[in-house]
């Protein structure tokens, strides 16, 4: 089979235009950041802020406080009791359960 291998450069990742409405106060704040030389443009400032906060927001969504608390309780119970406090009740074996999801 003929084939060739390459790694696509990340620099070629396509950009997309997102129109955004800002109130005057936020727009002025952006302009101030640009005037202070922290960013070259409003676009660059907004891009940097999105990059900085998007992952953080996503993390907060994935691991909320209820999830963290339950996990902590499970880990503590395991440490104290010595065994796994979570139980799967099934007539099937672990291999069968996984094989079923791979069908």
């Amino acid at each position, binding site marked *: *089979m*003929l*084939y*060739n*291998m*390459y*790694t*696509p450069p990340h620099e070629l990742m396509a950009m997309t235009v997102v129109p955004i409405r800002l109130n005057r106060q936020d727009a002025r704040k952006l302009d101030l950041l640009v005037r202070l030389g922290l960013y070259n443009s409003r676009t660059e400032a907004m891009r940097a802020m999105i990059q900085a906060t998007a992952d953080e927001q996503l993390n907060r969504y*994935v*691991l*909320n406080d*209820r*999830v963290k*608390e*339950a*996990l902590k*309780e*499970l*880990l503590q*119970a*395991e440490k104290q*009791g010595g065994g*796994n*406090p*979570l*139980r*799967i*009740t*099934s007539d099937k*074996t*672990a*291999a069968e*359960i*996984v*094989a079923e*999801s*791979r*069908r």
Partner: protein
Amino acid sequence: MATYLDTSVIIARYMPANPAFNEVERLFRTSPEPRYISEISVLELHCVFSRLIRGGMLSAPLGLSSFEGLETNEKVKVAVEHAILTWRLTVATPERTYIRFPLSRQTIETQHELFEAIRTAPTLGLKTLDMLHLTYAKTMRETVPDLKTFTTLDGEIISRRKEIENELDLTVVSPLDGP
């Protein structure tokens, strides 16, 4: 030496009635080798735990109220986090490389691991996700050189040990093989 841990082994630790429970627990407690999984495993853990929780088959029988009070999606997150933390699993992502190959007058561009799975499928004859786990494990070796084994309880994968070793240079081991 490091190993790629199949999902079947990970969840067997949640099943005291499972025939392999004692051997898996021994592996869990005594094996010092670093354990790896892939993004495919992360997806699979989410799917398997979701199905179990939705079917009422995963619980915290010690009366751990904060777990039992969670919504289904939160329980799934807790179970996946719990599995990865307690098994001390490292989720390794292979370097993204792509391969182009001709197929039916088209040029297909696919991730390296998928191509390896396509290439070896006729010889190994395994299920799609089995193939992906194996080829991910093989590709991960570029970043984890001592990842040489694939630990599983899956009888079909175990039955293809020799072919997997020949094609992918991976040794398939089972907790039931003994220490």
